[in-house]
């Protein structure tokens, strides 16, 4: 599979990593470019033994955890005008999703990585292969993180 095709097919993973690790659209865009660039640089050494997703998870998370951020003022703009009437059902669903993302972003960086791999439906064995920690440790850590997430969301959903 050519790199361009691979990137187009799996860019969703990178978008999710960016949303998880960066708060503003500008920072997410920077991180997206950094991850795409690191993938492109690493592609000649990609041996196609592992699934492309496993390779992408490893490099995308590595980049998110290691990359420096540009210094700039923290300006955030809401997507809509505050007085716009919203559909109640969509609004409720959207609100719950936003709470979920907010809770996820409150996790420490290392725990975010594990939670992301879990939400991507990777098995403990696959998570262990991507992160380099033992399968047992993956299980223990994930249970703790899930409890932490529930506590963060407790009473808000």
């Amino acid at each position, binding site marked *: 599979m050519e*790199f*361009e095709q691979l990137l187009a097919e799996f860019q969703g993973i990178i978008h999710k990593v960016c949303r998880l690790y960066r708060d503003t659209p500008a920072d997410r865009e920077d991180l997206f470019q950094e991850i795409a*660039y690191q993938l492109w640089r690493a592609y000649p050494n990609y041996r196609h033994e592992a699934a492309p997703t496993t390779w992408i998870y490893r490099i995308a998370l*590595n980049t998110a955890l*290691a*990359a420096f951020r540009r210094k700039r003022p923290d300006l955030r703009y809401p997507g809509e005008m505050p007085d716009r009437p919203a559909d109640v059902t969509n609004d409720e669903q959207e609100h719950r*999703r936003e709470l979920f993302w907010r809770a996820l972003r409150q996790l420490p960086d*290392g725990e975010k990585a594990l939670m992301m791999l879990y939400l991507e439906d990777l098995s403990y064995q696959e998570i262990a292969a991507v992160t380099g920690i033992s399968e047992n440790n993956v299980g223990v850590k994930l249970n703790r993180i899930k409890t932490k997430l529930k506590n963060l969301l407790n009473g808000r959903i």
Partner: protein
Amino acid sequence: MDEFKSAWNDAASGLPRQAPAFKQQPPVARQIKRQLLIEAVAWVVFIAVFRDAFDGDTKPLYLNILLVAAFLLMLVHNVTGYLAARNLVNGPDLRASLARYAEKLRVFGIISVGCRALAIGVLLWFFASAITFTATKYWMLAGIVAVVFVQLFLLGRIWAGRVKKVSVALKEMSV
């Protein structure tokens, strides 16, 4: 957890099917490169003109050599840092790669602060060598040294913060 997974999976829905730009250097790398170029030009200009502009020829030869060597060392160190910053991924898994990266950052940070301290120290020595010192001038020199120490301390803290960020993430994943 099912609702979480659904929210998670929806986060990347509706993306275009074509690949985004990927060959262009990322903005942070471009910013580092720009800063590096500006510093490099300034130091090269300084090295080129210091003998005439600051009477380098009237000062001991060893001091001239030391000054050029210190600035060249800083320049070479910055270039190696820029090249290293392009390779963030270096290991078979996340843990191994981050551990290597944290160690690389730690060593790089120490050399970076050391290089700056050396360059500023030699620069002060170079300029101070022609001065006949009085009590007031000693106090002024002490003030400059104090400011330099504060700057080096802050630079050291920036590097320590970078190393800590990666080390803490490593610990969070494994403990």
